[in-house]
């Protein structure tokens, strides 16, 4: 029987780091040990100098299909994910139509299976059409496997509705994830509110608008007992609020994006819409606080908020261009370049910690051990590289990292025992 032998690599999983060879057959890890001999039909992957880890899991991917196929499709987004080392992505529900019904959610999952590059797990919206006024059929959606519910792109503004959503979700075993933004405080906002926006004459997005909703939702967790996941946390104040909530033992988790640990609002000075994102790039003090939150475990996961946009939409004036930047193919390189923490911790925040939040911990982020599903990433943790737009698998090109040195790059990705990326090239 033919299989794969990954030889000579450093394995990193939740039990730590060690030298080991990994043999895969029939979608499963069958043997982990020293100096394993290749079988006659085994494909040997030389992993000398590389790290072998469970595949990455992205809690926050905009695949744009259905509705905005000119920016990304489930196939192109899955390919970008696989190239970034992801074996599972949670597809955000702000599609058109919204992922608020079983039929749309099933469509997204099926398209993911057809592409066969990544395990695509659709999220569901909390409210119908993400309009913030009526709950989606959460039990029906949970029954077909939806685990994460969010109105991402919008925060749920109505505190009563959010409270009811949490109470209703209590027995469903699902997680509500909040895009924290009090919309009344960010009307027309283009970038972080501070001295940069003042000088540039752009409407500001105050940190307060995020922090007020983080605070509100933490208090709703306290009275309902239902878990909440805070999406793309971006301010020092939010990090502190989550830190205290965790100290109180509340079931609150949080994610941060690679761009919020690497870029600041100063970059908007040239008015490039590549740097427009929601929540906005903040100050260096916020960047440091978010990095610290990742270092001390306050922030559980690195999530990309991969948000492809077609060039013609980004080539509009800053206030009209949509917010968002690509993330899947650069996440690892940005994180290794900008986080001063042990590599094990970065992998944890990109793999098993988000896997647990996404409810996919049975398939992804597993230990690298015999009997476990073969969803793995093999990456070079030290190589320096730069993004070349033409090489991106994503259908869009809106990355802010062109010409920025990154460190660490995915070489191979294995999904259910199949090499879907070899030497950085997608195999399908």
């Amino acid at each position: 029987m033919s299989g794969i032998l990954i030889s000579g690599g450093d394995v990193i999983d939740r039990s730590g780091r060690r030298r080991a060879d990994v043999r895969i057959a029939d979608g499963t890890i069958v043997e982990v040990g020293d100096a394993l001999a290749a079988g006659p039909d085994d494909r040997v992957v030389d992993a000398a100098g590389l790290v072998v880890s469970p595949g990455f899991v992205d809690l926050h991917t905009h695949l744009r299909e259905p509705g905005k196929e000119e920016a990304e499709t489930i196939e192109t987004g899955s390919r970008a994910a696989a190239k970034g080392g992801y074996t599972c992505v949670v597809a955000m529900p702000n599609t058109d139509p919204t992922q608020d019904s079983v039929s749309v959610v099933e469509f997204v999952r099926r398209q993911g299976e057809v592409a066969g590059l990544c395990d695509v797990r659709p999220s569901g919206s909390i409210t119908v059409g993400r309009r913030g006024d009526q709950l989606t059929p959460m039990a029906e959606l949970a029954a077909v496997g939806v685990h994460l519910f969010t109105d991402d792109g919008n925060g749920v503004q109505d505190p009563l509705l959010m409270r009811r959503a949490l109470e209703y979700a209590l027995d469903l075993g699902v997680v509500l994830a909040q895009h924290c933004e009090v919309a009344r405080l960010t009307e027309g906002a283009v970038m972080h509110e501070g001295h940069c926006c003042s000088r540039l004459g752009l409407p500001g997005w105050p940190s307060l608008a995020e922090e007020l909703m983080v605070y509100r939702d933490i208090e709703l967790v306290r009275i309902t007992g239902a878990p909440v996941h805070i999406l793309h946390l971006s301010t020092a104040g939010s990090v502190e609020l989550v830190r205290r909530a965790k100290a109180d033992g509340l079931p609150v988790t949080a994610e941060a994006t690679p761009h919020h640990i690497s870029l600041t609002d100063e970059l908007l000075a040239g008015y490039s819409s590549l740097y427009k994102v929601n929540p906005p790039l903040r100050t260096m003090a916020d960047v440091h606080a978010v990095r610290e939150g990742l270092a001390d475990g306050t922030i559980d996961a690195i999530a990309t908020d991969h948000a492809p946009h077609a060039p013609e939409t980004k080539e509009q004036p800053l206030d009209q261009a949509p917010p968002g930047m690509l993330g899947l193919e650069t996440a690892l390189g940005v994180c290794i370049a900008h986080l001063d923490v042990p590599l094990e911790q970065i992998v944890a925040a990109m793999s098993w910690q988000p896997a647990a939040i996404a409810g996919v911990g049975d398939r992804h982020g597993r230990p690298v051990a015999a009997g476990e599903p073969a969803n793995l990433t093999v990456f070079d943790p030290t190589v320096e590289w730069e993004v070349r737009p033409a090489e991106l698998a994503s259908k869009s090109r809106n990355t802010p990292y062109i010409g920025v040195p990154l460190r660490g790059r995915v070489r191979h990705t294995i999904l259910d025992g199949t090499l879907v990326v070899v030497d950085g090239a997608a195999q399908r």
Partner: protein
Amino acid sequence: MKHFRSISEAGPDALRRLLDIADHMAEVNRRPNPKVPALRGKTVCNVFFEDSTRTRLSFETAAKRLSADTMNFAVSSSSVNKGESLRDTIETIAAMGIDAFVIRHKSSGAPWQISQWTTASVINAGDGWHAHPTQALLDAYTIRTALNRTDSFDGLRIAIVGDIKHSRVARSDIQAFTMLGADVTLVAPKTLLPPSLDGFDPVTVTTDLDAIIGDLDVLYLLRMQRERMNEALVPSLREYTSRFGLTPERAARLPEHALIMHPGPMNRGVEMAVDPSELPGSVITQQVTNGIAVRMAVLFDLLGSGANLEAES
């Protein structure tokens, strides 16, 4: 200089040079036939994505007096309404062979984006809340001539009153006036100031116009838009006028030599609660006149090849 997009980008040397050139242009404008061949064969395209009568007319007049060919592109008659991106629009016009774009856009930063997509010079005729550098130039030129301050504005006390937050005029004036040495005071409630002044040139801030009005050399009033009170920025226009408007009582307390300026269009009865024609210090019409000279200076500086200004066409 390739572009003229903001005062800070141009810098103090260019600012002084442009003011000096404007002196020559003002002289041209006083001639019986106010036209010179300096920019003959050059094409200037006014691209106005936002309504503006006076600025567009001023630029067009300036270009024509320098013998440049002018084209006008107004958003209402354009394909922008058909979903064309800003980049496509600019590249299309640029392909017709343009030497300079004069850009007015309601979005801050549009002139910077546009200059990535064309090799032509870009002149900012006002972008969002951000900058209006030719307005600042004409304001500085007006002060310089009216107060005979050719060398510098050192020690000059200038108050800019009103909606600083939403004002591209204020942002550019602050840069120009402080660059020339003036002491600038912003007079506005916190609701009408930018969230942070950290990145600005040093200015003083007050809400008490009456405390400073007796010591001013220049009182610069900004337009107070009527819809601002619906955004809870001020309680009412009446209260705005009582705190920040130029009332007859305040006008009487201004020093005799002090200038009264306004970028227009004025809100009579709001920030301008007196008839400006009855104010001896008002230089509001001179501002408009000077606008042509400074815009000629900018066009000449960007596009001219040192051609002789003396020759008449």
